């Protein structure tokens, strides 16, 4: 899952980590880290998805706030 890329450590709350580990196990992920990486990648798409921008741009044009 992590391939050959470099990794860094991130601290998270202990209780949250315990919950993540439990869910990762039930969901079939090899490790909690693999699960966390998968979730983060999915969430990042929301911010990086340019379709969002296109929707907003169209709305703002209709409202007369951008040309």
């Amino acid at each position, binding site marked *: 899952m992590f391939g050959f890329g470099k990794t860094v450590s991130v601290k998270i709350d202990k209780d949250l980590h315990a919950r993540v580990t439990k869910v990762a196990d039930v969901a079939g992920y090899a490790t909690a880290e693999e699960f966390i990486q998968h979730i983060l990648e999915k969430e990042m798409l929301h911010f990086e998805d340019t379709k969002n*921008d296109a929707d907003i741009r169209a709305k*703002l044009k209709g409202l007369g706030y951008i040309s």
Partner: protein
Amino acid sequence: MSFLSSLFKPKLGAPLVIVSGLPRSGTSMMMKMLEAGGLPIMTDSIRTADIDNPKGYYEYERVKDLEKEADKSYIKEGRGKVLKVISFLLKDLPDDNAYKIIFMRRDLNEVIASQNKMIKHRGETDESDDRMMIDAYMNHLAAVRILSRKRPNFEMVEIRYDTTVKDPKEAARQVNVFLGGTLNEKAMGEMVDADLYRNKKGATV
């Protein structure tokens, strides 16, 4: 110490005060408050008052081209003044100025309801799905917060529209503290017109 000198930064000059947020989140109300508080406004008054903004828009038309226009040197003219820039265009502000951003927040259901009414009044067509737009706006707002932390020349405070209407004095105090404490808070608070809070959550759209 004057407002300008208290906020003066040697390299970037006096900061521009930017009023931002999604359209229909109380940006014009905040512009009016700041004007009453004693700050000069950068506006060309091209977009005049209408049914959606009976007290005027306080816009500077050229800002609408920020995303496309290469020459943004005119923004410098706003140093020490207040300029309205919608949240979507904050990313396009040039780096040669310092910005103190007052970011208006409002319930997204209310924002969408008000925007939909405005689009109708303008005679425009809009086929966007409200739920989808709320998701897009939520992501956009998160991206704006990230942007404000990444840009060293950005300083941002978030002010809620509903609490401003409910307690204008407190909102005026918060804004005044953020801008250095030299504004006329009383006059700012008196500018808030609760009757203009028309698209409340749960109200008929």
